[in-house]
């Protein structure tokens, strides 16, 4: 479970995140929806301790990253915005490296790695060096290495970015599987359909603040719109009206 309370972060004069609060529960998929530049990546970066919030608090399974960032990182599986792989290592070796950094035994790594390779349908590329991988193959490898330690909480920053239809569908199946396993899945996206298809709960972020936080059905009801896309535009639009 991930709890975020009133997070703030600025870069110089730019307030990237300006009071974000929400909760992502176990066994649910929570979508962080917002236009580009809304503060989604910065919020996630504070969650996985890459950045320190200027104010506010994060709790991951009850642990505060300000107190114990290493313990928090152990609870998290993260697919960051940056997906850089080691191109002179094979996909398998990339996964193994992260397993070792998680402090796992070689036997445990092997079991978990093979399970992920099957679950992500990447058996054919497992022993290839990652140089020259397609976008989809890169994302699969990056996710496998992020989840090698079997984390309770999974953070995915725009996981379907740049994927083709087949790969996107596979990714959605995989996220449902993570949910079925009882994990807390939090992902960011700027694509409406995706959020609609996946989420139990949607947190809409614009201009660094949360403008809506509800189930898809409740959002439709509140805005009185028929489609989630219209609801989304209405929410953002209203917010802009308020800000101006």
């Amino acid at each position: 479970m991930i709890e975020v309370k009133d997070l703030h972060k600025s870069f110089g004069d730019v307030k990237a995140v300006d009071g974000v609060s929400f909760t992502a529960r176990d066994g649910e998929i929570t979508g962080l929806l917002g236009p580009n530049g809304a503060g989604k990546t910065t919020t996630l970066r504070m969650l996985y301790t890459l950045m320190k919030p200027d104010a506010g608090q994060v709790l991951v399974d009850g642990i505060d990253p300000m107190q114990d960032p290493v313990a928090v990182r152990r609870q998290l599986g993260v697919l960051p915005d940056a997906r850089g792989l080691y191109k002179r290592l094979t996909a398998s070796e990339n996964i193994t490296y992260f397993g070792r950094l998680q402090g796992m035994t070689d036997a445990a790594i092997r079991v978990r790695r093979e399970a992920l390779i099957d679950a992500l349908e990447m058996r054919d590329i497992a022993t290839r060096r990652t140089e020259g991988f397609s976008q989809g193959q890169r994302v699969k490898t990056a996710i496998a290495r992020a989840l090698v330690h079997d984390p309770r909480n999974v953070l995915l920053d725009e996981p379907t970015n740049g994927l083709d239809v087949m790969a996107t569908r596979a990714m959605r199946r995989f996220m449902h599987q993570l949910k079925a396993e009882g994990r807390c899945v939090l992902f960011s996206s700027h694509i409406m359909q995706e959020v609609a298809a996946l989420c139990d709960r949607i947190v809409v972020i614009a201009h660094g603040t949360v403008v809506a936080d509800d189930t898809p059905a409740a959002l439709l009801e509140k805005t009185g719109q028929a489609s989630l896309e219209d609801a989304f535009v209405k929410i953002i639009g209203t917010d802009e009206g308020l800000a101006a």
Partner: protein
Amino acid sequence: MNAFRAVYWKEVRENLRDRRTLVNALITGPLLGPVLFIMLMNVMVNRELARADQPIRVPVIGAELAPNFVNALKAAGIDANPGINDPERAVHDMRADVVIRIDPDYVKAWNKGQSVQVEVIYDSSRRDANTTVARVRSVVESFARREGAMRLIARGLSPSTAWPVNVADRDQATSQSRSALMFSFLPYFFVLTVFMGGMYLAIDLTAGERERQSLEPLFVNPVARWKILAGKLAAICTFSVISLLLSVAAFSTAPWFIPTEKLGIVLDLGFRFGAQVVLLMLPLIVLLAALQSFVSALAKSYREAQTYLSILMIIPILPSALLSVIPVKPEPWMYSVPLLGQNLGIVQLLRGDGITGQELGLCLAGGFAAAAVAVWATAVLYRSERLAISA
């Protein structure tokens, strides 16, 4: 497996698969120095020897006036060539190394027992001609001395009346210390090898990783950043140590390829020398690895890091260059200055003087202290938020 070893082995394995890093660490870095050194020394030695032993031909203007003088030149292996017009121009244009001009009044003055003038025309800024000039000069001087002595004896005087003071040379240089003079740039080669051996790794492990956007996922792992840095530094050090060992081994074969016996010098680059050099260089290996990582961490891209590091590469030249321009007597404190200490120490080893425990201690203490500061500074930089953000 703990995080330090995981990072270390991954970096070593990944870079063993990179041809550019391998070529730099195992071939260019360690072997360029020795090969260049052996080639240069051979060219230099052979040229010098050729000039010293073989007969040379020197244009002599007015040779017909002074057959006795020309014979003396010939006896010393200097053949008189026909005179040339405008000798000053000829020397300037490098058509001749040196030209001798005999005064037209030579015969008259000689017969009267007066002093005569023999001009030696040369250009002291032309270093390649210096050996020839010195040889001609010494022949002219010894001819003058001999003839002077003959004249004194003919007048019933002892030649010693004309030379109340004799200079007797007592050169204390050993054959080994003479060679140290020629090889004083060796320390720089060793430093350069260490620099080159680790450079590409340092760039790759920091700036490269950042550019490829793999630093952010790496830092998401539950490992303190200093542990990641330690693993990376250890990998860089491993490569530069291997470079250095190869370089020392290659240099130890140098005496086989250089005709040292012809020069009357002794070059001892054997196991003892090599081991001491490696010991002296240990702090520099850590220091340079940290400095390179620090500079690479400041750069935004691989290329930028490469540019910065090639500027940084100039720094190790400074002590060698400084010492060759301003020869200083080594003071104890100098040993504790990184680079300078290594330079002094290695030159001392070359001279065959050995290095005292105190000097070695200062060298290692100073070097490791500087290395510790550099590692600490890099660790602080590694903690910064900006480092991981690639784009």
